[in-house]
């Protein structure tokens, strides 16, 4: 066909191109025929009714494949000089046909205005929503959780999967978990709360997402052998937890909110806190391993707990506390003692020993000499937060905290640091005042308090009900005193003089003097009830 094309004379436009068809005379003049539009209609024309229809609008008619026609030489006959292509036709290259009307305004006159290479787009002024990327390991976990959600599998096993971070979004999936009941014949359908078990042992987690503590149905949480440096205070919210394993991490102290798990209505049975590089007291506490489990705890009025619900499983007692760190709302530490500075050595001096001799009854220790500055401030303290703190608490409640940072000018970098810190805290579930449980951003006071934890169980060894034993959760000497960090919103929530006896958690009745445990009134009214 190509060869045939070459031999053909240049085509007249508007005429069918098919060589087999006889060329038709153009009805109109050639100037109009190049125009693809309909011919103009004037009022003097005949009525364009169907009666006057003579011939349809002329149309280019092609028969055969497009490549059999030669558009390059024929379509634009107005401008194209009849060219004679010799030999095999060269391939058409894409080029701008300036007059084709396709590339409007691109006739080369405005090219100066448009840079050849576009610069990087200007940084958007409004903060953009950053879609966090998740690591492949976390994606695996997410898939696993989704699979478990579908099958109703309550144990999510994610051992040794090289998980380095865990985002809130992944864990939030777990809150949707519902128990899938087994349908058996003749067994009444009953609704049951799911009992989720999450095993994240042997990973490389450095921090925990706050959403983890909102998963109400979590009963087992294993974080053994990770790289956690601290435990968020939100852990106290997990009231359904039965097993908690925090061993083999890098934890220096526990939040005092962990003790909420010992409350009367909590179900905690197993607790592993060791080994961890916990903060040690500079001065030793009294010999604590004496009488371990030797003497039974006696019930004074012969009425042991009627129900086992109120039976505490763990009892704690205070041993001593460190000096207090005072912080301004902007994060500046004003006291001589700083918790951050002791993290390296891991040894803290003890400012105040709780007097173990007067168990159960708080007695002010005359030898104690607290920081004079702190004492003075306590006298004239107020519970009203500073305005900076009040603003930060408001910002903390809104979802826009993370965006605020980008608006802070460079001159106020200390405020930016404050916002950054608040955002990190929020991500982990926020801080609360250990005393009044108010949500706070910057604790005004922080101090370490050492406590001894013992598990509390009814003794069968002595053959009689109503006798209880306190068993240490660890027999290693340096693991007896467990450091807990206290945070306070104001000086009025600061450290107070409290008794050093075995403390019964909230919701359980009872108090102890020596090894005797009282559920009723004390034998003599020598002191006020020191416990709830």
């Amino acid at each position, binding site marked *: 066909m190509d060869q045939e094309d070459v031999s053909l004379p240049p085509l007249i436009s508007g005429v069918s191109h098919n060589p087999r068809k006889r060329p038709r005379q153009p009805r109109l003049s050639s100037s109009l025929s190049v125009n693809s539009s309909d011919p103009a209609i004037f009022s003097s024309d005949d009525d364009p009714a169907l009666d006057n229809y003579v011939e349809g609008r002329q149309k280019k008619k092609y028969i055969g494949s497009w490549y059999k026609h030669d558009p390059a030489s024929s379509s634009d006959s107005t401008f194209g000089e009849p060219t004679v292509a010799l030999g095999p036709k060269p391939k058409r290259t894409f080029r701008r046909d300036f007059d084709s009307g396709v590339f409007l305004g691109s006739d080369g006159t405005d090219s100066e205005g448009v840079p050849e290479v576009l610069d990087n787009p200007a940084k958007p002024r409004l903060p953009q929503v950053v879609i966090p990327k998740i690591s492949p390991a976390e994606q695996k976990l997410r898939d696993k959780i989704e699979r478990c959600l579908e099958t109703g599998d309550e144990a999510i096993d994610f051992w040794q999967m090289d998980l380095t971070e865990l985002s809130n979004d992944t864990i939030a999936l777990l809150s949707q978990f519902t128990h899938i009941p087994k349908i058996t014949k003749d067994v009444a359908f009953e609704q049951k709360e799911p009992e989720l078990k999450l095993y994240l042992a042997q990973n490389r987690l450095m921090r925990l997402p706050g959403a983890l503590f909102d998963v109400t149905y979590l009963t087992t949480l294993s974080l053994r052998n990770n790289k956690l440096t601290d435990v968020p205070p939100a852990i106290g919210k997990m009231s359904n937890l039965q097993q908690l394993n925090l061993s083999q991490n890098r934890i220096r102290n526990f939040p005092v909110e962990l003790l909420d798990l010992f409350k009367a209505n909590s179900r905690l049975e197993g607790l592993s806190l060791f080994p961890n590089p916990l903060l040690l007291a500079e001065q030793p506490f009294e010999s604590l391993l004496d009488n371990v489990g030797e003497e039974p705890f006696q019930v004074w009025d012969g009425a042991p707990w009627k129900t086992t619900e109120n039976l505490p499983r763990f009892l704690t007692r205070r041993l001593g506390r460190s000096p207090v760190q005072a912080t*301004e709302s902007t994060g500046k530490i004003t006291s001589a003692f700083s918790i951050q500075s002791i993290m390296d050595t891991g040894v803290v001096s003890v400012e105040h020993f709780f007097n173990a001799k007067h168990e159960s009854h708080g007695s002010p220790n005359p030898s104690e000499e607290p920081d004079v500055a702190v004492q003075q401030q306590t006298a004239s303290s107020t*519970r*009203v937060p*500073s305005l900076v703190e009040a603003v930060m608490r408001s*910002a903390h409640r809104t979802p826009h905290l993370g965006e605020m940072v980008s*608006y802070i000018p460079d001159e106020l970098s200390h*405020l930016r640091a404050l916002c950054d810190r608040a955002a990190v805290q929020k991500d982990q579930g926020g801080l609360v005042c250990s005393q009044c449980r108010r949500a706070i951003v910057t604790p005004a006071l922080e101090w370490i308090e050492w406590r001894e934890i013992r598990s509390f169980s009814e003794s069968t060894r002595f053959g009689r009900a109503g006798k209880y034993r306190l068993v240490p959760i660890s027999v290693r000497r340096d693991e007896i005193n467990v450091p807990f960090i206290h945070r306070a919103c104001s000086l009025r929530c600061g450290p107070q003089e409290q008794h050093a006896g075995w403390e019964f958690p909230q919701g359980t009745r009872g108090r102890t003097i020596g090894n005797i445990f009282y559920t009723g009134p004390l034998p003599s009214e020598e002191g006020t009830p020191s416990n709830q």
Partner: protein
Amino acid sequence: MDVQAPSKYVTLISSDGFEFVVLREAAMVSPIVKGMLDPKSQFAEAKHARCVFQEISSIVLDKIVEYFHYWYRYRNSEDVPDMDIPVEICLELLAAADYLGLDHVNLNSK
């Protein structure tokens, strides 16, 4: 104003000209305002008990004045409600609070 008997109220003026009349004792919570209005000093602000804040708009200053009274009212009480701060002014208020030195929790309540 008489230096010996400072007025009970002081006037704080925002950048857009709004005047807020505040109890002097309440405004003293800010060390900056306190310094400006110290009767012993010879500042013009102290003489006339008027402080003009060119950097603080009336919306923000309104909130600051609210805080002064909030602090004054609850400084000795045990149960302190949260102050309501709209999120739109959080940043400006944060910067203003920092400027006015309102970052101490342990404010003297004499």
